[in-house]
């Protein structure tokens, strides 16, 4: 089973993501900001990270920049999942090392196809 770390300061978004990822047979972990997510990754790297952009303490962009410098930090496939929907923001995320980008609102089909394209869905 693949693991996915959900990083979002909204309880509702985390709950929705947890439910969808559960249906897709992921084991999920959660963090409410980038700093907590870094601690979680330091303990063990997940296969995927669903990452919000705007969060208190540490933003998604700050998190991914630090993650990609960590030992083993290139392993997780990182999918931004944010209300930021400007093409400039998407480019910024890709430059920082993101693998995919989801613009909220999203649904299970969007998450499913994106994970599938990253090779994270077991056939």
């Amino acid at each position, binding site marked *: 089973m693949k693991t996915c770390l959900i990083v979002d300061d909204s309880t509702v978004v985390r709950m929705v993501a947890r439910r969808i990822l559960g249906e897709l047979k992921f084991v999920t972990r959660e963090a409410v900001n980038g700093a907590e997510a870094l601690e979680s990754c330091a303990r063990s790297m997940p296969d995927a990270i669903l990452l919000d952009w705007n969060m208190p303490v540490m933003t998604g962009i700050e998190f991914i920049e630090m993650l990609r410098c960590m030992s083993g930090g290139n392993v997780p496939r990182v999918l931004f999942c944010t209300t930021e*929907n400007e*093409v400039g923001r*998407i480019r910024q995320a*890709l430059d920082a090392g993101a693998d995919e*980008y*989801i613009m909220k609102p999203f649904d299970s089909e*969007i998450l499913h196809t994106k994970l599938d394209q990253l090779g994270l869905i077991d056939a």
Partner: protein
Amino acid sequence: MINPDDFDFIAKLVYDRSGLVLTPDKSYLLESRLVPVARKHGLKGLTELAGALRARSVQLIADTVEAMTTNESLFFRDTKPFEQFRKLVLPRLLETRTSKRSLRIWSAACSSGQEAYSLAMLLMEEGPKLAGWNIEIVGTDLSTQMVERARAGVYSQFEVQRGLPVQMLVKYFRQDGDKWQIDPRLRAMVKYREFNLLSDLSPLGTFDVIFCRNVLIYFDQATKARVLEQTARRLPPDGVLFLGGAETVLGVTDRFEPLPGERGIYRVAPPTPPLPSPALMPLAMPMPAMAAMGGRR
């Protein structure tokens, strides 16, 4: 609820025009799709709609058929066929068409254009390899509305997230508020036109590759066979046909055969040899027949 007579009447009309088979268990679909059509035409409900259809209101008939046949689509639907196209079909075509340097691809029942544009993006990704090639992708759909949408190439934020890798979104779309429009270079690669798959397909010309996915599932056996037989005539001997995951030619027509080892891809079957006539098999013939043959010579 729609009464059975009206259901049968509308189902037959939709079938005659589009080949779509509506069974009574699909009456919910008919209701959900046609109540808005009835409203648009100032009719109270499905009974009135059926009445107006019987009176042969041309625009209403077109709207009804269209409402029943349009389906949602996504970019790079099912992923695998596009991989097969890129890794297997395209390299072979680039080799065999190297002197002609031209390639024609048909996206049949193209809906709002996602399949045709996905193919255009794949070809664009090939870069310099295709420089100087004359490439035409033809997208056809029964629905005027869908053809217009496909031609415009404008998609919602939801639509561009269905199946489209974000790298391709950034590369091949221009953002306009919460809409995304496909690059003019890609729009120029695809010609869209209104076309009914049940009509004579010869005006479309011939293609090297045909994508006809998730269309046949809506047809009955006879219609499937007819469409496949016509489709075979649009392909050269080395052309290929892609069908949807739940579709096959097996048991429907012998004009196509599966491409060995490749799920979902079919090639035109070589002409079947005529049944061996006795004249060609003298060794298997009883003596008197031989004698009779000799006598006729």
